[in-house]
């Protein structure tokens, strides 16, 4: 399918005032807010319902065996990847394809680092200690929320790698279209960062 078939990939749609891709991503993000919102709601439900004492009580920071150092490091990695993502878009906007692609590659590497740290130093370590989703209510919601978030990171890496590799052909055909697709990827990526900004304190610190 040629790029010309899709309408309003560059110019804003007269009704929405946005090019179609961007409007679509915002609608998608609205549905994502509902998905994560349901889980945040579940977290609140479980937490305020937990008894004060006894085996079903909400665990304290020490009892969860979650390291704020690892969580904090991953927060910084994700924030940095958001900056490199938006800088990639800036470079494409300024017609610097090489630099733009470099920033995309850095973003992908940071994202992979996030997932690697999550799996190697957190999940693997927990499984080794026999801490699994069925261990407690806390770990059930911890694995569900961070697992879903990690899947979103992996999805983002796939899209970013596509635009570094085969998707980059679009740059030669239509630069503005390609730049807009990077902007849409960025919107998704910043949303994933935004979710983590809330996950980090509620799971690691409170």
């Amino acid at each position, binding site marked *: 399918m040629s790029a010309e078939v899709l309408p309003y990939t560059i110019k804003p749609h007269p009704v929405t005032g946005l090019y179609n891709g961007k409007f679509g991503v*915002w609608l998608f993000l609205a549905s994502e807010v509902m998905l994560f919102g349901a889980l945040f709601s579940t977290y609140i439900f479980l937490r305020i319902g937990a*008894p004060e004492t006894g085996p079903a009580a909400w665990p304290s920071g020490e009892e969860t065996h979650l390291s704020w150092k690892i969580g*904090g490091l991953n927060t910084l990695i994700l924030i940095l990847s958001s*900056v490199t993502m938006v*800088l990639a878009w800036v470079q494409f*906007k300024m017609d610097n394809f090489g630099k733009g692609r470099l920033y995309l590659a850095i973003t992908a590497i940071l994202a992979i680092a996030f997932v690697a740290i999550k799996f190697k130093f957190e999940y693997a370590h927990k499984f080794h200690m026999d801490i699994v989703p069925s261990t407690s209510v806390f770990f059930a919601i911890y694995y569900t929320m961070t697992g879903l978030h990690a899947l979103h990171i992996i999805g983002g890496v796939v899209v970013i790698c596509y635009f570094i590799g085969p998707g980059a052909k679009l740059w030669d055909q239509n630069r503005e279209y390609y730049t807009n697709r990077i902007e849409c990827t960025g919107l998704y990526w910043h949303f994933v960062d935004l979710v983590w900004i*809330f996950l980090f304190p509620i799971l690691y610190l*409170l």
Partner: protein
Amino acid sequence: MSDAHADVSKHVKAYIAVFATLAVLTIITVWASTWHLSHPMAIAVALAIASVKATLVAMIFMHLKWEKAGNIWFVIVLTVFFFVVLVSIPALMHSDRPLGTVFSSWG
């Protein structure tokens, strides 16, 4: 195109400033957790800082500050409204019946 160049290059300073702010706020969040605040206060402080960070990401990285199309704001206001409803449900139930009594029966 040159206008666009000038526009986006102006944004770069904002991106770097936001990154620095987010990094500092992350450190403050961790630091705040060592203050030994009462539980509701600790949650309020952590969520307030997270909300500031989220607003910065949405306004600057997601370009909402420079977004002129009103339809985006329409989508966002609706989304935020339903999100607030969603996370308020447990609180509403809590006011109806103390959940502690429900969960303690789980053993």
